[in-house]
């Protein structure tokens, strides 16, 4: 019997929906094996269609995007009820992704920046239509409902997605690598035996010489990020920013710990300067997991 699958998008960019097409010709095999019963982004389904389904009648429901509005939350709960297996698809659903950085600001500040004090919006006002509520903080899927499996990545890279679909359709959930990205990095041989950072460089203002990014003083999250993407970014000469999440726990904390210890510490003053030169710690180390770092939003402790 064909498996019934559903795909829903919460607060995301739509890249996850597109990434499903990124498995190319494998998609045809996939469509032979499954029935799509709900996919609002690609086909005409209404919420009431989903409501009418029997509880537990969907085999696998994929949820991409984070939970930003009350609508996202409602559908997440509904899908949980209707599906045997609920899968967080992509970095937004798993860790909150880039939009999770909004948790550094209060809802009022976000509205202010978008509607009121925005140069490109003259005479702005906060819209007052009947819309789903914009929640005070951005949530990840697993903070709202029980999640059976996570497919990380922004969007999930092809090899990860293929492995995940293969495993999930066969009822398995162990498809993620437990190694760090350095393990499959094409630049791993250029990593010196002893890494030492004497200066933090930004990628866009340095001349990449093709060696390990950390050896060049460019922050690369590969050392704390889960492998599996076949180092797509590094192959394109861009340091890893950590979209695959950590191997165990938050990748940002492990990366902070590791990179801080690589900094040259002969001289306290110099060490302080190097650390001071790291701009935007949350944005650098928690680009994809700020919603996990700040699940209740920014802490109010300024005194």
């Amino acid at each position, binding site marked *: 019997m064909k498996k019934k699958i559903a795909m829903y998008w919460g607060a995301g960019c739509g890249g996850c929906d597109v990434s499903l097409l990124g498995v190319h010709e494998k998609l045809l095999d996939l469509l032979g094996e499954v029935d799509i019963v709900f996919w609002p982004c690609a086909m005409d389904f209404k919420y009431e269609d989903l409501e009418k389904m029997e509880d537990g009648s969907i085999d696998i429901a994929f949820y991409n995007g984070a939970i930003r509005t009350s609508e996202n939350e409602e559908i997440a709960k509904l899908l949980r009820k209707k599906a045997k297996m609920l899968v967080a698809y992509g970095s937004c659903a798993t860790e909150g992704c880039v939009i999770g950085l909004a948790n*550094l600001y209060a809802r009022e500040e976000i509205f202010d920046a978008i509607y009121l004090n925005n140069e490109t919006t003259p005479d702005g006002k906060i819209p007052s239509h009947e819309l789903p509520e914009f929640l005070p903080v951005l949530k990840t899927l697993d903070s709202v409902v029980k999640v059976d499996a996570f497919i990380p990545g922004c969007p999930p890279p092809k090899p990860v997605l293929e492995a995940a679909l293969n495993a999930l359709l066969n009822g398995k959930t162990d498809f993620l690598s437990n190694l760090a990205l350095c393990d499959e990095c094409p630049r791993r041989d250029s990593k010196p035996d002893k890494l030492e950072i004497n200066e933090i460089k930004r990628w866009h203002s340095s001349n990449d010489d093709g060696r390990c990014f950390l050896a060049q003083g460019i922050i690369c999250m590969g050392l704390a990020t889960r492998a599996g993407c076949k180092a797509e970014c590094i192959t394109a000469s861009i340091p890893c920013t950590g979209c695959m999440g950590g191997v165990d*726990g*938050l990748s940002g*904390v*492990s990366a*902070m*710990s590791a*990179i*801080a*210890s690589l*900094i040259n*510490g002969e001289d*306290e003053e110099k*060490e*302080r300067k190097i*650390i*001071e030169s*790291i701009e*935007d*710690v*949350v944005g650098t*180390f928690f680009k994809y997991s700020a919603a996990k*770092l*700040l699940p*209740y939003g*920014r*802490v*109010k*402790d*300024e*005194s």
Partner: protein
Amino acid sequence: MSFEPKIVAFLCNWCAYAGADLAGVSRLKYPANIIPIRVLCSGRIDPEFILHAFRNGADGVFIGGCHPGDCHYIKGNYHARRRILLTKKLLKEMGINEKRLRLEWVSATEGRKFANVVSQFVEEIRQLGPLEAKK
């Protein structure tokens, strides 16, 4: 009820923990607000431990290590120094007052210093008030 700060103290086995022990056997007085946790080296303290403490209700985190040059494992305390600097930056961006995290060098003979810095720190956290990380 008046506010009593909860402080988690990570103390290195070779210096700060021994220093705390000395403060105890010397019958020095210091506030009972700290919960000491012995680690083998201050370089063992992952920023995750610190965040975990704050997430679970600590109002302050104290870290005691060996003086520079005195580390039992040669360089552990230097690693700690850099990690704490970076973690303080992170706390600031998260909205947590960086004063809630304190690193002090305490040797095994400095029982008095231990009692002093802990009393000072507890007082400072008392002034800052409770950390409501869950709000």
